[in-house]
């Protein structure tokens, strides 16, 4: 297993790096560990407008990104260590072959970790790791989070926003009680030390990205993972049944809207842009109230 060193804390770069490795390093087994700045990461096939309070994210200056693997919404900050395995697919979907070494590593630190039912890792009933996969041309990327000393308060505030008024066929998140691994480690350990030990335990050699690889990843990040069209706009068709506003939207663009809100049709669901439109028709307080109805 070759550890690919990735010092970047930019989630868009790291998500692009995952896709780059999956699609371009097509033989051998690789592991990338990374920690991203505070952000909310939705699954590839989720409706941002149904899973996340965009207003809450803006209030906390927290960007939203969409990853290339399945599953639900997760929270990242520098206290969360992500592990991304890349390998041949094999004959069937298999979580255990990737989760077992991580669970064994945690146990070696004195953490009573177990594999959970929903392809996660739990400690004393609390989820410390969520996992998902992406399969491309016979190769698999297995991605997992490890909450080491993440801001659980921020996590709860930013990811507990399943919005029942946004109805769609999109993949839904499956919220669970979460915990930090550092709470279960007997001795004091920093997240940097934890990440180093994890890399040492799971790999037998290491390398860095070449300058050409960094350039290709940066290019992919710019074309995809830093765009509104991917992160929010990829949301599937949904209907919003707000208290005051009803509308339908696909790819983040309003397709139809209830009586009196026709002026929203064709517009992108971006709070600042929608607010400007509402302020042309309503006083500030009413516009703010309608914005919350649509986005909060």
């Amino acid at each position, binding site marked *: 297993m070759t550890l690919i060193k990735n010092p970047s804390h930019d989630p868009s770069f790291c998500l692009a790096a995952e896709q780059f490795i999956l699609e371009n390093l097509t033989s051998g087994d690789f592991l990338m560990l990374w920690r991203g700045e505070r952000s909310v990461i939705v*699954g*590839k*096939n989720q409706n941002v407008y149904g899973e996340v309070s965009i207003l809450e994210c803006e209030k906390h200056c927290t960007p939203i990104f969409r990853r*290339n*693997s*399945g*599953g*639900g919404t997760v929270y990242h900050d520098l206290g969360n260590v992500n592990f991304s395995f890349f390998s041949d697919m094999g004959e*069937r*979907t298999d979580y255990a072959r990737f989760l077992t070494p991580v669970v064994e590593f945690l146990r070696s630190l004195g953490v009573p970790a177990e594999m959970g039912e929903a*392809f996660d890792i739990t400690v004393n009933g609390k989820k410390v790791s969520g*996992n*998902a*996969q*992406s*399969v*491309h*041309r016979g190769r698999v990327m297995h991605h997992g989070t490890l909450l080491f000393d993440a801001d659980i308060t921020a996590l709860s505030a930013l990811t507990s926003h399943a919005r029942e008024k946004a109805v*769609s*066929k*999109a*993949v839904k998140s499956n919220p669970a009680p979460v915990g930090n691994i550092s709470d279960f480690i007997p001795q004091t350990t920093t997240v940097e030390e934890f990440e180093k030990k994890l890399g040492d335990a799971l790999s037998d050699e290491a390398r860095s990205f070449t300058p050409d690889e960094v350039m290709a990843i940066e290019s992919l990040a710019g074309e995809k993972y830093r765009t509104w069209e991917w992160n929010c706009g990829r949301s*599937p*068709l949904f209907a919003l049944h707000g208290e005051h506003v009803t509308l339908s939207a696909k790819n983040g663009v309003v397709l139809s809207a209830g009586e009196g809100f026709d002026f929203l049709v064709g517009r992108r669901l971006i709070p600042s842009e929608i607010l400007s439109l509402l302020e042309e028709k309503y006083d500030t307080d009413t516009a703010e109230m309608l914005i919350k109805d649509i986005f909060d």
Partner: protein
Amino acid sequence: MKVEITMPSLRPEMKSGVLCTWCVKPGDEVKRGDVLFEVETEKVVSEIEAMHDMKIVSLEAEEGDNVPVGQVVAYAEADGE
């Protein structure tokens, strides 16, 4: 030759999968290995590739549909009898 494109079984116990994304549309001519659609099941996103060259005739499932294994999701035309 009319070709049925069905929801594949990606593991022995799989009963259905969510067809998340169509990567083709009716009228498209695809080559063997081109990605036709994406399936999500158990938090795994899998690309489903064309088994041979063909022209897509119709799509029989919508994005977001949970489709049983073996059910037709599209029809296509391919060379040959």
